[in-house]
């Protein structure tokens, strides 16, 4: 061990000009959450390469140490420990799922290393923990955005059909708790298993409820596509809302443009890059990310890769402003982030708010002719 330390010290002495900033990441690039983690990891790798090509941060090269945690919280904790103790990174990005994020944040808080999570649940930043931040909106905000739209259209009675996975269950609970604020009554509350292949029974039950004016489907993965098809098959002629969990072109492909016609959901600016107003503060960053990601991977951008983009943007912006790669200085700089435009929204963090987004970050989208359109 002594030899090891001496060698490291010698290398450090010999190469003083080659300063580098080590960022860590634990992402679920494979496993059940791969459809989230895969674009996230690709985004991070692409951005690091791009940043270094442009000269790094304040002239220092950025090195990304990324591990694949398979969506397993126990592995995520091990990798987070490895990033902190073994790789000695100055900050961590990652935690594709809520479970992995909760595991990583425990390690990050102990080691006092800034951590930006890519997962949705509000528990990650509520109560506020000093070193933990996150980029995606919470499911509570998605519910509020949807109910706001329903309120504008004069709906008061809503039927819900939710997935029993972590995402669906969490959003189901949040929607039920905020519904009264918008004068909305949940008149039906059905669930399905994410592996189910048919939800017509639940939908028939919802249709049978007297006075139901709209249907809301919190869920992610393939479930919502099947629900969307079933709604069409049953010819249910009610306004139909999906969640931000399916805000990607993959959803339209899976459900079919025909069945998805008229579906509304809260999404990010990224999905409607072409439709953004010229003076929209998010326009430049959304266009740049979309162009770079699509050129690099040949696949369309999605909301989830956007979360990783924003986390990297916030982190590198903070390191540049801090002028130092000390974890404590980075943390303070992240908390002082003001009006930073990302693909998900415009971030302003405070000591009490480690999410930094408000409802304006969501755009209400409607699918028309197999394309996303903005609801005015």
């Amino acid at each position, binding site marked *: 061990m002594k030899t090891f330390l001496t060698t490291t010290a010698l290398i450090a002495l010999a190469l003083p000009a080659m300063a580098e900033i080590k960022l860590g990441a634990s992402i679920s690039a494979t496993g059940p959450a791969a459809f989230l983690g895969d674009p996230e990891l690709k985004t991070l790798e692409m951005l690091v390469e791009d940043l270094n090509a442009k000269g790094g941060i304040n002239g220092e090269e950025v090195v990304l140490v990324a591990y694949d945690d398979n969506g397993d919280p126990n592995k995520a904790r091990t990798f987070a420990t490895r990033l902190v103790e073994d790789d000695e990174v100055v900050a961590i990005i990652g935690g594709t799922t809520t479970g992995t994020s909760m595991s990583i944040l425990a390690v990050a808080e102990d080691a006092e290393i800034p951590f930006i999570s890519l997962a949705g649940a509000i528990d990650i930043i509520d109560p506020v923990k000093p070193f933990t931040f996150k980029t995606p909106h919470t499911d509570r905000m998605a519910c509020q955005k949807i109910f706001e739209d329903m309120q504008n259209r004069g709906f008061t009675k809503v039927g819900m059909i939710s997935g029993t996975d972590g995402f669906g*269950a969490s959003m189901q609970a949040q929607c039920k708790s905020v519904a009264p604020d918008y004068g909305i009554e949940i008149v039906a509350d059905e669930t399905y298993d994410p592996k189910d292949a048919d939800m017509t029974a639940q939908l028939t039950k919802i249709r049978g409820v007297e006075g139901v004016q709209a249907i809301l489907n919190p869920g992610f993965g393939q479930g919502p596509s099947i629900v969307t098809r079933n709604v069409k098959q049953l010819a249910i002629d009610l306004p139909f809302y999906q969640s931000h969990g399916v805000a990607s072109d993959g959803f339209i492909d899976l459900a079919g443009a025909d069945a998805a016609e008229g579906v509304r959901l809260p999404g990010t600016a990224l999905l409607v890059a072409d439709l953004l107003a010229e003076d929209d503060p998010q326009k430049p960053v959304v266009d740049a990310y979309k162009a770079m990601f699509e050129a690099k991977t040949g696949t369309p951008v999605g909301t989830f890769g956007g979360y990783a983009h924003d986390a990297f943007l916030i982190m590198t912006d903070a390191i540049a402003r801090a002028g130092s790669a000390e974890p404590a200085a980075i943390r303070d700089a992240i908390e002082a982030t003001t009006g930073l435009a990302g693909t998900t929204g415009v971030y302003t963090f405070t000591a009490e708010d480690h999410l930094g987004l408000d409802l304006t970050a969501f755009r209400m989208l409607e699918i028309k002719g197999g394309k996303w359109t903005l609801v005015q």
Partner: protein
Amino acid sequence: MTPKNATLLALAILIALSPIFFPSSFYYRVGALIFVNALAVTGIVILTGWAGQISLGHAGFAGIGAYACALAPVHLGLHPALAVLLGALISAVLAWLVGRPILRLKGYYLAVASLGMGILISMVLNNERDLTRGPDGIDVPELGLRALLKDAGLDLSNGQFWYFFCGIVLILGAWLALNLRDSATGRALRALHGSEVAAKTVGMDVARLKLQAFVISAVYASISGSLLALQNKFITPDVAGFMHSVEMVTMAVLGGVGSVAGAIFGAAVLTLLPQVLTVFAEYEQLVLGLVMVLVMIFLREGVVPSILRKIRGRGE
């Protein structure tokens, strides 16, 4: 020295001296994980290696142990250490209830029954949201032993504490298992594994012996789950997942299903491999599969017993 004492001594020396070679304190975490897995796999050795029964639902018991530590302190006001015992008790009772009717039958019915039981436990943990908080997981209270040690003048880092604590629990677990092996019950278990008919004709209560082995191994799995939960201070239903059950059996088979040393070796290899293979994460499954296939072809009894046999064979 008897082989039993030799195994325990070697284990104790390994656990005590390995930290000297750790390049960073991250390796305490890996060590603690190895010990936690090895404890569960020691239970599998008792059940599969000695009693000849297969369980595909042992992660369910780990889940019970883990969630007992998460829930009992909050809802029942129990100290986390007592919650570990409560989890073990619940696992034992459940194993007894499931095993009692099943183990009267011949053949591999236990594999199917335990598979179903494991999946049921995992479903309950996922779906009883009001209690378990569902798939997003739940916080686990601090054990508090580390703070006590600090007051007593022994200041260990979190990683160091769990490394040595899990190490000591593993030595205890291995000691109990090895004692059991040499007891009348252990000999009877191995006899019935050799030939159930012969064991029966000499008057052994075969069903009762198998049931004992199943209950004991369930307690091992439960305590292993508890240690994991207390160490991570956060647990999700993944701990009770089917893949975790398969992992336990795989570790036992790789190291040598009839040997406690083999169990620890198997747990060590399969816990370390993913850490070593992070550079080629995409090929991790491939390498794991290849290792298993090669072991099954060339070292049929598992790595440790096969190698021991070779060494002894040469000596004779």
